[in-house]
């Protein structure tokens, strides 16, 4: 789960990481008031889940409260990579001597949290990683023991020579690690970590991604979710406990299991169609899940045909058949449905469908070819 910069700042600040005072505003007048309270030049920053905010005009300097009001009016409501800006962060403009990058990610290869630290900061770290990998110091942390003092010092020494700054940065490394663990992060990043002309070390921007699997037992973290930053159909699917991702095509897909759902999308493409979505209805599929899935898919006017691809292992295919029949009685689907089901309780499922005037195929390739043809004819 992505959270906004202002929320990430709060989580880092709670661990004691030094940063400039600032606040978040939802209206231009709120932004003006914050700028007045902070005094001096401030930065107005759009709060959206998208990179490249600066280039898109979502980050602006304001020399006084009146300018803060103007810039906040421009930025609030603008769209960056399709996402509308609902909030701006107002922070004092820092005087910067040096900029560095400090990131902590959950690394798949080492199966541990890994620090990535670079004196080449304030830039796209992925670009540095591919063009100048030697400029990045990597340090895996054994989560059983946590970050050792000598490790945080070594990371800090890779950034600074001044020992006071080294000590300050080492402390920030420890605090970042503590924030990472405390909030179940898969990524926690300070970019840039700056030094000021008077020698202080400060976090200027923060980014945090929270492991979705933590949310179940950490409702406090779940509260940080911004529903408005999501595609509405995806937010609706999440509330219905469906794993759904919206795509651009016209063939709606309802599948059980993530791997089979991806393979189904791929097969739609293979036979010349375009999938409209990824959707995994999960293992134990109640008829209600099927109804919700159909509602979400048919809300998209681009969808011209829908494919059910169900391999009954734990999923009972008769449950899915009941769901399809109930859904078509509850509301008008409006586009043709192709059903492929095989496995657990298949005979019962076919009986349920046939009683409602529907048929089912047992072969995946045949079903995908048929739905692609139907979508093409309707388009």
């Amino acid at each position: 789960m992505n959270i906004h910069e202002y929320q990430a700042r709060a989580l880092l600040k709670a661990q004691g990481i030094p940063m400039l005072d600032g606040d978040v505003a939802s209206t231009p007048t709120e932004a003006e008031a914050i700028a007045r309270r902070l005094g001096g030049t401030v930065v107005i920053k759009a709060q959206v889940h998208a990179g490249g905010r600066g280039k898109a005009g979502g980050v602006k300097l304001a020399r006084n409260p009146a300018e803060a009001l103007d810039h906040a009016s421009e930025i609030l409501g603008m769209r960056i990579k399709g996402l509308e800006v609902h909030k701006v962060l107002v922070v004092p403009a820092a005087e910067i001597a040096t900029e560095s990058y400090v990131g902590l990610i959950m690394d798949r290869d080492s199966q541990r949290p890994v620090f990535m630290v670079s004196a080449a900061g304030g830039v796209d770290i992925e670009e540095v990683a591919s063009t100048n990998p030697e400029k990045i110091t990597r340090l895996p942390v054994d989560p059983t023991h946590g970050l050792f003092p000598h490790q945080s010092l070594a990371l800090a020494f890779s950034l600074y020579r001044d020992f006071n700054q080294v000590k300050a940065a080492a402390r920030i490394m420890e605090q970042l690690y503590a924030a990472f663990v405390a909030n179940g992060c898969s990524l926690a990043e300070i970019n840039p970590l700056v030094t000021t002309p008077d020698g202080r070390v400060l976090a200027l921007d923060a980014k945090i991604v929270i492991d979705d699997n933590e949310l179940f037992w950490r409702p406090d973290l779940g509260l940080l979710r911004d529903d408005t930053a999501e595609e509405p159909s995806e937010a609706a699917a999440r509330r219905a406990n469906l794993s759904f991702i919206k795509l651009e095509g016209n063939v709606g897909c309802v599948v059980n299991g993530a791997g089979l759902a991806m393979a189904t999308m791929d097969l739609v493409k293979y036979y010349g169609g375009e999938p409209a979505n990824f959707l995994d209805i999960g293992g134990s599929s109640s008829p209600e899940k099927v109804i919700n899935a159909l509602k979400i898919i048919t809300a998209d006017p681009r969808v011209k045909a829908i494919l059910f691809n169900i391999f009954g292992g734990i999923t009972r295919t008769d449950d899915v058949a009941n769901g399809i029949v109930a859904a078509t009685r509850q509301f008008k689907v409006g586009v043709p449905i192709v059903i492929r089901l095989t496995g657990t309780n298949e005979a019962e499922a076919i009986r349920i469908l046939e009683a409602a005037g529907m048929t089912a195929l047992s072969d995946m390739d045949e079903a995908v070819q048929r739905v692609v043809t139907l979508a093409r004819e309707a388009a």
Partner: protein
Amino acid sequence: MSIFADARTRLVVQGITGREGSFHAKQMLEYGTNVVAGVTPGKGGQTFEGKVPIFNTVADAVAATGANCGVIYVPPMAAAGAVFEAADAGIPLIVCITEGIPVMHMSRVMPFVRNRGVRLIGPNCPGLITPGARAKVGIIPGNICAPGRVGMVSRSGTLTYEVVNHLTRSGIGQSTCVGIGGDPVIGTNFIDCLRAFQEDPETDAIVMIGEIGGTDEQKAAEFVSQHVTKPVVGFIAGQTAPKGRRMGHAGAIISGSSGTAEEKLAAFSAAGVGIMKRPADVIPLLRQRLRLK
């Protein structure tokens, strides 16, 4: 032979009285798996289905029954604890079915099981099945499998069933099918399974089902080119997946430009792995490589 699970498997089911655990314990018993014990704290002394003794702890179960394999069906927040418990009780093979375990929990589990020489399969996996020995550890439907000499390893559940179903219907049986799981941090990876299948005298060919995200398939391809002499065919799910989105499985995500299907298929190609463009291709590819009719 086969790999990991066979006729000598003596299984303890952790979470045997829960909704998922009891359903699948019954299925495993029906299939013929030697389920020797169940564990649910507080229910020690009871029996499951009138025949499987239930214990309060895995250590008690091991002491009383000689269990040598554990399968975990406990909820996400208790699952890492269940792995620690099984490893601590000396279980050498632990299969964790549970989906939704925080990655940080798994990051702490892995050094612990490694230091004890324990093999962990999963989490977020369907487990494994050796049809020839009637040994099923997990949730793979037994009725779609048949005994034979093709080894399968996969990051997915239902997609595995789809491919196994093609094999069985075409008369191609399986030595062992292993689901290694869809999470970013897992115990047993492709290479572990490839090595075991290569060494297994009862496996003639290997089917590898991967997906987008991470570099496990790329490393597996490298391993195939250096150490595997048996024919290998492979599939990668997620060729149409957008970047940066988690496709159901926590591990199925293209980060930046790394972990794409193209990159994995190119690695397969370079290693001589037969590429399945769609699940049904498994049949002609295996027939060709095994010179079957």
